[in-house]
């Protein structure tokens, strides 16, 4: 039987572009607004301050962003369910408090302590998930309660005003050390190779099922664009950015870690049954339930993933600061939510990807970094970030109306 209904893969490059424009107009904008604002902000700040585009500031920006980016990606898993985790920041704080007590006080191997911290995060996520999914308490309330409670727990664990230096060089290295030049290139090569293989694999499976593929030139164009941007970034970071005699160069170690989490998380959301069911529950829980999806289980796992990834963002933060404080993670969580929303993850649930949250985090970090360089008073920074957030949420609400307005 011949199949006559299209799938969006048909047509030449021009037709594909037209179809893409139509989707954007129809409200499926994805990361487009945040990517555009990244460009605009970069040009703006570059014009206003010559230091903004230096290698030194660029590396700085990446490490500044990493913590926020990881937290925003963590939150995507629960925001996709139209839930929220206000305790993600302090959860990472509690896990890191446990970590520092294990390494510093009890002198346990740092690897075991990291695993313990991640397990601690996972357990907290399961706790939140149980109350939200099984008992039915709104996630806003459960996590607000934990947000308050865990601040107390952090104080109890680390003492009033407690601050502990991180003695583990491997942890300090994440944010403060760089890959050797050749390893930056090797990582880029591996990344491009994996992307290419994945693309060819997908095309192969489609072809075997007798389906049309998008023009192959489109795939090559995308890969080349990614390769060129990636190569430019590695080249810039591999130059010496030190202002003293000691050379500093190379891709910060945190970059490959964050990109690997982004890659694996995206595979989980896009290509596994769990990911599909997560989106389904976020879009219409009742429809998901009637299709036989175990909604409670999906919700609990989502909270567990969120809290675990939040712990990784806590590790990044501790590495950057070089210490674990009793107040860690308190201030950042709302910025994390803001980053996800600015990137195009819908608070209504069911719409958004990890890359959106990553792009949103970059936007917020660039605003922070750029305004700081221009030397405006600190208050302006919050005003601008807040304005961007409201703008992004408005875009989300409007595009949501538009995409369901076709009825």
């Amino acid at each position: 039987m011949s199949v006559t209904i299209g799938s969006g893969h048909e047509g030449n490059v021009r037709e594909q572009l037209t179809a893409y424009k139509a989707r954007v107009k129809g409200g499926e904008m994805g990361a487009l607004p945040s990517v555009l604002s990244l460009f605009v902000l970069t040009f703006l700040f570059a014009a206003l301050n010559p230091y903004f585009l230096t290698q030194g500031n660029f590396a700085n920006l990446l490490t500044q962003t990493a913590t926020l980016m990881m937290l925003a990606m963590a939150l995507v898993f629960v925001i996709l369910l139209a839930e929220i985790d206000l305790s993600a920041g302090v959860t990472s704080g509690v896990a890191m408090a446990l970590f520092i007590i294990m390494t510093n006080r009890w002198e346990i191997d740092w690897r075991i302590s990291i695993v313990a911290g991640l397990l601690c995060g996972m357990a907290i996520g399961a706790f939140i998930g149980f109350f939200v999914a099984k008992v039915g308490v709104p996630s806003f309330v459960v996590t607000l309660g934990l947000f308050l409670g865990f601040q107390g727990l952090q104080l109890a664990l680390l003492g009033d005003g407690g601050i502990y230096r991180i003695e583990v060089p491997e942890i300090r290295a994440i944010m403060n050390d760089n890959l050797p030049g050749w390893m930056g290139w090797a990582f880029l090569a591996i990344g491009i190779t994996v992307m290419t293989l994945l693309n060819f694999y997908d095309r192969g499976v489609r072809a075997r099922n007798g389906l049309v593929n998008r023009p192959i030139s489109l795939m090559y164009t995308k890969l080349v664009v990614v390769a060129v941007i990636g190569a430019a970034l590695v080249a810039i970071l591999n130059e010496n950015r030190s202002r003293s005699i000691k050379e500093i160069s190379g891709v910060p170690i945190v970059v490959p870690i964050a990109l690997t989490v982004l890659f694996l998380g995206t595979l989980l959301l896009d290509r596994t049954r769990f990911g599909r069911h997560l989106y389904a529950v976020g879009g219409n829980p009742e429809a998901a339930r009637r299709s036989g999806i175990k909604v409670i289980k999906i919700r609990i796992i989502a909270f567990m993933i969120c809290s675990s990834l939040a712990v990784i963002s806590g590790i990044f933060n501790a590495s950057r600061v070089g210490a674990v404080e009793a107040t860690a993670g308190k201030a950042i969580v709302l910025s994390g939510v803001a980053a996800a929303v600015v990137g195009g993850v819908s608070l209504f649930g069911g719409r958004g990807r990890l890359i959106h949250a990553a792009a949103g985090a970059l936007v917020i970090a660039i605003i922070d970094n750029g305004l700081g360089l221009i030397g405006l008073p600190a208050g302006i920074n919050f005003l601008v970030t807040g304005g961007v957030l409201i703008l992004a949420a408005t875009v989300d609400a409007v595009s949501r109306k538009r995409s369901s307005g076709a009825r």
Partner: protein
Amino acid sequence: MTSQTPIVELIGITKSFGPVDVLKGIDFTAYAGRVTALVGDNGAGKSTLIKGLAGVQEYDGGVVKFEGKEVQLPSARAAAALGIEVVYQDLALCENLDIVQNMFLGREAMLGITLNEPQMEFEASKTLTGLSVRTVSSVRQKVASLSGGQRQTVAIARSVLRNAKLVILDEPTAALGVAQTEQVLNLVRRLADSGVAVIIISHNLQDVFKVADDIAVLYLGKMVANLKSSETNHLDVVQYITGSRTMGDQE
């Protein structure tokens, strides 16, 4: 004409909620390849009868025969395992997912640990093509962008994809405009022609006469008439529905 075994046969079905007898000994049959309309006023017991068949709410008494064999329907899963699919009025689709994703929701095709999107896409297209659906341009469209009629189409096609032997449609045309109603009714006809037994619940007698082969009329928990749509007319059915006429009057 219908000497074959019915797909589903209900004999003496009863159901009560506390002191209220909602179903008072219903006999009902549906045949493969035929559209059976279930009509009746509000409170006649249509929903209760359907919920029992769907496995959502068990009957108190009576016998359910599926393909000639007596069966129990304790859960929706049990009903689905037999090949009974219900398309509810609210359709239960995820707007944020596309047509293929919705049609395979909860029973995704896998390739190792990853989703086999191409296989699902192929089978979804095949099913829609098999039902001669021409109103959707791409199976990768998000359901949010579909019209009411197109959504109904997707929901019906999903039940076909699940190899349903009996598809129950709850008010499929209630919220649709004229053109879309026409499309959905055509689809229902083709569904039956493909060998599926279809039960359609509707308040709209115009639609019923357009698509149904048999008409079963419920009145206050009793089956008051089993008619062939070719042998009756609008007025008769209305009289049965309102209780101003019973089966005995016909003879």
